[in-house]
């Protein structure tokens, strides 16, 4: 039973359904975030170069990041994609409208997105590229602004060339990991009855009708089993003539067990996210000044070494060690599936641990630096403004006494979730508890080692 054990929020809360069906709701939110986004880019380009006082740095890399990774993704999945301003100009140009459904074709060249790029490898490498320069991007407002602006421009260009939200689905480095971690969220958009969709001839959710556009994410809701490829833009809610769309509250993490949709690109995303969290923690929170200097490009040869280590850790070392653990699991549990299949499947067990690590890491710098937000709110450009009387708010680190407990709690939760998921995946390959338990041991051992590494970095 597809929706068993789930609560349909749209059915329980009719006002919510009316709000989400309203054509103005999503554009209104996007206009709001676009205004903030424009302000952030502007502050980065012409505001103070001191990152801690620049709205562009403080509100993007502290406030937005904390909201995204600690609230939006774990609890609401891809909700950020619903209101993200980056694809907005491109999408509105395609539609030649912001709110109303404009009849006729989308304003685009309508090129076909290459089949070999219909995965998240571009997002993986895009994220790695941004992450490699993150110590620069996260601290220098003008660099940060150019990166954000380039996202916006790439979004517009791709909208002009390809139909729908190709940028969001296949290119956006942020969207890649949001999609991966959205599979853990206790919120999902699905259909009430897939048979209704199968029987429905016109497939308005894909083609659009007078109430809305065809799915901008090029996803057929009728076959949705996971959150990863649904940007919860609610167009299908508006177009579905069968009233078949539901917005469910569910137990978190169910998507990880959808075996037929597991892929190598997503598995690698799990490693990249885990590896980047490790390296970020080491560079930004660790006691190694030399590593910070290398990452900050103080000298090119040292940065080249750092880059090499960074790429090796994410693409070879972590997957390699994990591959060895999976090989061991396959051997001791006498599983006969191909090693590659098992490698991909078990990698999904690392997704909860990766999200937990990012949340714990984020707590580490957000609580300490959040007081900068008040000053930046009143003086976004560092020009001596005092819009809300908070420009002189002194830097006050918050939660320093509870921080280690928070980090340990989050990491432990992530580890337990990972071990539990690994066991469930093992059960998909071995009907017997004993065999699945044995297969879980090496994979869990890997997760424990990674967790200990994070604890060492967070707690010193």
């Amino acid at each position: 039973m597809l929706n068993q054990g789930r609560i349909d929020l749209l059915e329980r809360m009719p006002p919510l359904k009316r709000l989400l069906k309203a054509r103005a709701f999503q554009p209104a939110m996007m206009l709001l975030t676009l205004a903030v986004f424009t302000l952030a880019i502007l502050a980065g380009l012409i505001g103070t170069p001191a990152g801690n006082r620049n709205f562009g740095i403080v509100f993007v890399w502290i406030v937005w990041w904390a909201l995204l990774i600690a609230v939006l993704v774990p609890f609401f999945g891809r909700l950020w994609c619903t209101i993200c301003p980056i694809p907005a100009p491109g999408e509105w140009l395609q539609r030649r409208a912001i709110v109303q459904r404009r009849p006729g074709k989308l304003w685009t060249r309508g090129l076909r997105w290459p089949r070999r790029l219909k995965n998240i490898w571009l997002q993986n490498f895009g994220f790695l590229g941004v992450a490699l320069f993150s110590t620069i991007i996260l601290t220098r407002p003008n660099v940060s602004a150019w990166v954000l602006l380039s996202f916006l421009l790439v979004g517009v260009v791709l909208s002009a060339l390809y139909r729908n939200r190709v940028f969001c689905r296949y290119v956006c480095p942020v969207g890649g990991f949001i999609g991966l971690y959205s599979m853990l969220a206790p919120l999902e958009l699905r259909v009430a009855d897939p048979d209704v969709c199968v029987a429905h001839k016109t497939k308005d959710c894909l083609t659009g009708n007078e109430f809305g556009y065809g799915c901008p994410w090029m996803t057929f809701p009728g076959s949705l089993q996971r959150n990863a490829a649904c940007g919860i833009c609610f167009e299908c809610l508006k177009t579905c003539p069968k009233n078949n769309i539901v917005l469910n509250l569910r137990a978190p993490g169910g998507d990880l067990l959808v075996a037929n949709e597991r892929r190598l690109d997503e598995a690698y995303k799990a490693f990249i996210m885990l590896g980047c969290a490790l390296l970020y923690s080491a560079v930004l929170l660790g006691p190694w000044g030399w590593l910070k200097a290398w990452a900050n490009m103080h000298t090119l040869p040292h940065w080249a070494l750092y880059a090499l280590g960074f790429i090796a850790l994410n693409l070879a070392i972590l997957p390699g060690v994990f591959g060895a653990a999976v090989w061991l699991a396959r051997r001791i549990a006498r599983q006969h599936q191909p090693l590659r299949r098992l490698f991909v499947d078990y990698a999904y067990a690392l997704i909860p641990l990766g999200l937990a690590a990012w949340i714990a890491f984020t707590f580490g710098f957000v609580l300490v630096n959040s007081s900068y937000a008040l000053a930046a709110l009143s003086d976004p450009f560092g020009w001596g403004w005092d819009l809300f009387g908070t420009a002189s708010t002194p830097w006050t680190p918050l939660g320093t006494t509870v921080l280690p407990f928070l980090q340990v709690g989050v990491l432990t939760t992530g580890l337990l979730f990972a071990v539990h998921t690994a066991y469930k995946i093992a059960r998909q390959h071995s009907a017997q508890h004993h065999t699945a338990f044995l297969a879980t041991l090496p994979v869990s051992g890997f997760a424990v080692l990674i967790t200990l590494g994070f604890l060492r970095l967070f707690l010193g």
Partner: protein
Amino acid sequence: MTLGLILIGLPVAVLGYQYWLRPALSPTRVIDIAARVPEQEGFAPDVIRVAVGETVTLRFASMDVTHGVAIGPGLGVDLGPIDPGQVKEITLRFEHPGIYTYYCTTWCSPDHWRMRGTLQVSDPSNPDVVPAAQPDPVIEALIAEGIDIDAVHTPSADHGDMSILVFQPSAQRGKAVIAGGLDVPAELRDPVWRQSHTPAEALERLTRQNPAASERDRLDAIAYLWTLAPADEALATGERLYNQNCAACHGQSGGGDGPAAATTAEEPVAFSDPGYMFERRSDVLYAKIRRGGMGTGMPNFGTLFTPEETWALVRYLWTLTFGAPPGLDTG
């Protein structure tokens, strides 16, 4: 329309407010000054022209590291530290033409001492005429006396080598020694005489007058006399100026071992070394501070401090040598 309002209207509104509306609403002329380490430009702008009678607001913003801003000489303006991205401002009105210097008071980089800007106050009726700096009578007198202020001063053979002192002279003890009956020649009690003579010269006279006194008593008495200050306020001013401007090289305790000592062309002088300081004249120290040390890495402070502030600084230097004076005394 809405999209254009955000993508174009918002930047136009921000820039319009900052560069048109905000200055228009300000009751004074506002001058924004960006502060960066001198290796990256220092103050920008580094020259500001103001008319007599004009009220201006100087708004300093630190663009990189923590700086500190003070304006001198004689204005008593000290904005304190300005953290990266922080903005501090001061509104001033000048009644007379003159030249002032705004300068960094926090050790911000190896070239910190170069971080200065000039505030030129001119008469509106002669805006191109900026008054020249007045000659300093103390420095003029030293030159007339034939003293080479820039010379490297070595211990004088006339007074013996004072560089090897077996004990640290103590101003605290010196007061008791004098109160106990040590015969101090009249000129040693004269602050003007002390300004133009070294402790070594004073020691020679004191020894002639008190041949039976112990060497330690005589040295302590000198230490006491050289640390006499007219008021504790002056000493506090000297201490503040020293910590802001001198301690980075000369060390907070005057040991010549400040964090920037390794970056100077010559090893900074150790004021806490009585062997060195026994050969120094206060007026020469004064001149060195105001003119700077040619080729040594010692910047000039004559454009920053008033003569009174410079004397307060010299008096503070002697306390680094001999310790704090036991109490206020007019000498």
